[in-house]
């Protein structure tokens, strides 16, 4: 062998390997498997696969509409309540008894870890509700025993009894009328579990598997999950609705929002959750991607800790509200991706009051009110800025900085405070803040879902009333609104509640943000669900 020969071999080897790389690389791969499946890039790992246990939207996305069904469903277009596992229902004249007729022939998932021997029936409904309702239920304390959604709405003390009439009929009786009750049964959290599976697990001594290896009736079966990496689902072939979903569904867990968008561009994701405000322009510019947008059911606000002087004085709260310019906050923080909030409820809800008065920007009156309230000109307060991004407030830190310059003009010095998210919420619940920038995303279309958790007295201990504001007149109105089914009558109560909020200013509503979802054009059938988690039951890939 001579040297020239050798180098020509080397040359050809290099050439070969490069051409191999190019061959492999050129063209996005389209194979059977990738065509028959859909990859959704989600923003985080779910806490469990049972949305009863957690109010975070990540958990709801991963389980609620994939693995489970509910008795009732929201129509994602108009928010009306539609039949789910209950094919019809009756409400008694005194609004205290609800009777549900259940759908027949609905099968549970058949998986390697559980084979159902019977179809869905009334026992499953009784089990699923009693699990969180009855303290002595064998499953009540499994997986922590905390059911935050139902606790924050006080549903335990609303429901008197859940009774099985026959195999396909269930009767729920209440202590007091609650016109938001049906809406609560349609939220992401009111899922129906399998009683048979639960009993099997109890016998095997591994009851907590109920929440980590889920069995439901939903359009997808759970296959496998690895924290911070992926969740795999397979289509439930015997699903009771004729859906067109893909054979395989994968949640690719990608916490960085820029990486999610990058994966959408390279085609590794077919749809992404929560694209960040900075990336929206990039998505709009690309012809192969679609940006879905809907006014969200959320509100971002600035809440004062009304249990702490001087914030217990409505005059001070009003003055501080007058000192900030909401319009510039909307432009700088939401980059125009939000509408100005005047009350708690956004225009997507039927209870929205369009003629509501708004607190304008007037630093002169603000200073005057502060003087009247005896606030010195070297007053210092803190603003807590939440450390995470949410649609209702994409950058609380920036907002707090802007607000501090406004407040400086009226002689108020601001300290901005932030902790990691878990400690932040813990310290808020114990009331260590002066004021906080936070918000709320509703779980159902019912206005009660805004008014009750955010400002009623009962919501102070459960930690959703960040203003720690308790007003009996307001509580009365919210209670009365639930006693009637007539939405016109309810609207009047809510508008009176708006007046009280305006007068007392326990919090300053700032914005209702749009909700976004970015999708590859090949995918059809993904819509934004303003009432909760993402759904894949009718999603198809165009060939």
């Amino acid at each position: 062998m001579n040297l020239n020969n050798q180098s020509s071999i080397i040359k050809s080897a290099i050439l070969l390997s490069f051409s191999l790389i190019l061959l492999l690389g050129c063209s996005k791969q389209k194979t059977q498997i990738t065509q028959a499946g859909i990859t959704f890039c989600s923003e985080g790992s779910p806490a469990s696969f049972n949305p009863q246990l957690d109010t975070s939207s990540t958990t709801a996305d991963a389980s609620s509409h994939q693995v489970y069904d509910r008795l009732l469903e929201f129509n994602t277009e108009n928010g009306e309540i539609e039949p789910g596992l209950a094919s019809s229902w009756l409400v008694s004249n005194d609004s205290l008894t609800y009777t549900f007729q259940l759908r027949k022939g609905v099968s549970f998932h058949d998986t390697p870890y559980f084979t159902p021997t019977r179809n869905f029936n009334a026992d499953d409904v009784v089990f699923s509700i009693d699990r969180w309702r009855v303290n002595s239920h064998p499953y009540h304390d499994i997986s922590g025993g905390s059911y935050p959604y139902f606790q924050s709405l006080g549903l335990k003390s609303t429901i008197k009894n859940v009774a099985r009439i026959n195999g396909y009929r269930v009767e729920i009786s209440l202590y007091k009328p609650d016109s938001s009750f049906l809406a609560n049964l349609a939220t992401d959290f009111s899922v129906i579990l399998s009683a048979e599976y639960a009993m099997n697990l109890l016998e095997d001594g591994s009851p907590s598997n109920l929440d980590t290896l889920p069995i439901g009736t939903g359009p997808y079966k759970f296959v496998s999950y690895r924290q911070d990496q992926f969740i795999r689902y397979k289509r439930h072939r015997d699903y009771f609705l004729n859906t067109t979903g893909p054979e395989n569904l994968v949640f690719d867990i990608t916490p960085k929002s820029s990486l999610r968008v990058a994966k959408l561009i390279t085609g590794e994701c077919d749809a992404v959750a929560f694209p960040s405000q900075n990336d929206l322009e990039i998505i709009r510019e690309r012809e192969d991607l679609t940006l879905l947008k809907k006014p969200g059911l959320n509100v971002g606000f600035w809440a004062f800790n009304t249990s702490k002087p001087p914030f217990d004085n409505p005059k001070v709260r009003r003055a501080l509200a007058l000192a900030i310019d909401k319009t510039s906050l909307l432009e700088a923080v939401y980059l125009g991706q939000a509408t100005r909030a005047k009350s708690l409820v956004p225009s997507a809800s039927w209870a929205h009051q369009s003629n509501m008065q708004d607190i304008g920007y007037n630093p002169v009156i603000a200073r005057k009110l502060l003087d009247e309230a005896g606030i010195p000109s070297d007053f210092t307060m803190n603003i807590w800025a939440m450390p995470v991004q949410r649609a209702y407030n994409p950058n609380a830190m920036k907002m707090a900085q802007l607000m501090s310059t406004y407040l400086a003009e009226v002689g108020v010095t601001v300290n901005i405070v932030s902790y990691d998210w878990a400690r932040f919420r813990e310290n808020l619940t114990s009331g260590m803040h002066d004021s906080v920038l936070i918000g709320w995303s509703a779980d159902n279309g019912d206005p009660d879902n805004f008014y009750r958790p955010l400002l009623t007295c009962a919501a102070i201990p459960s930690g959703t009333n960040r203003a720690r504001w308790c007003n009996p007149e307001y509580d009365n109105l919210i209670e009365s609104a639930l006693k009637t089914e007539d939405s016109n009558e309810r609207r009047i109560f809510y508008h009176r509640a708006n007046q009280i909020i305006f007068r007392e200013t326990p919090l300053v509503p700032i914005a209702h943000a749009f909700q976004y979802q970015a999708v590859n054009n090949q995918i059809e059938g993904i819509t934004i669900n303003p009432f909760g988690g993402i759904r894949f039951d009718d999603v198809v890939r165009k060939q």
Partner: protein
Amino acid sequence: MINLLLRYINLMVVTITTLVIISFSLAYMFPGDTLTNISGIVPQSEEQRIALEAAFKLDRSIFVQFWYYVDNLVSGDWGVSFSSQISLLDEISIAFPATLELIIYALLISICIGIPIGFIGGIWHHKPFDFGVVTFSVVSYSFPVFWIALIFITIFCLQLGYLPLSGRVNYLYDIPHNSGFILWDILVADTPNKNDAFADALRHLILPTASIALVTTAIFIRFTRHSIMDEMRKGYIDAAKSRGFTTRQIFFKHGLRNSLLPIIPLMALQISTLMTNAMVVETIFSWPGIGNWLIQAIYQRDYPAIRIGMLVVSVFVVTFTITIEFISRAFDPARDKFERDAV
């Protein structure tokens, strides 16, 4: 020989013991509860705390605790991850092979490209081709690996859209975990779309491997080139020339073998550089290896995972390095002490 073996074993034992002591003391030096730092479990009740303390011997003297710590390490009971509550041994046995796979492919590519090019450069040194080779190696050696990885992503993933930018294989291919080496797992897997999955895994491998291999290739080129130039300058080559052998005969009979022998262990020792670069590149390409896993552990303040992860990586590098040193010394007794690389 036995003397040498004993010396190396001694070195290894001392180093690893030091590492274990450091990792043990980390459980005390990290903020928070020592019990949680060691076990990964936050005790929910006083009874559980007492039971855990007894299990980890925290109620005994520090020496007893250390003894049980070592005992647990050896028996594979490494505690659980604070954030996922999964056994750390299981998590590492999934993450570590992914990193090894990346390192091995990068090493192979560097050898296949670096040695021949360094060769040619060494023989034709100070010729135009050699200047090209030297320029290439200096430039690619100077690129920070994280930067080159980002440039690759910008060009090949985002601009051209040829290659995927994250993971080992499309998650839609459900490849059962077997050896932890993705290509091998696909080959032995019983799935219908093997060929597609294999091609997909290769496409995922190209960019991370190339980013790591670039620096190592540059190092290998310089090693080889230097070694050949040195060898060809030696007296016996001149002697052979004066006897009338052609350059080609001399080179393939003597020069090649003699110049390759000393650099092979040098190359094996690049494993620590490769390891570091692989861990950096993993986080950029979301490669589910030990580097990515450690970064996640740091973000989530998962102290048990950080402690064990660092121990595993450092023990691996130390063991590998010492073994290679021993082998090269054993087979080349002429060398008194190990020559450090001259890059």
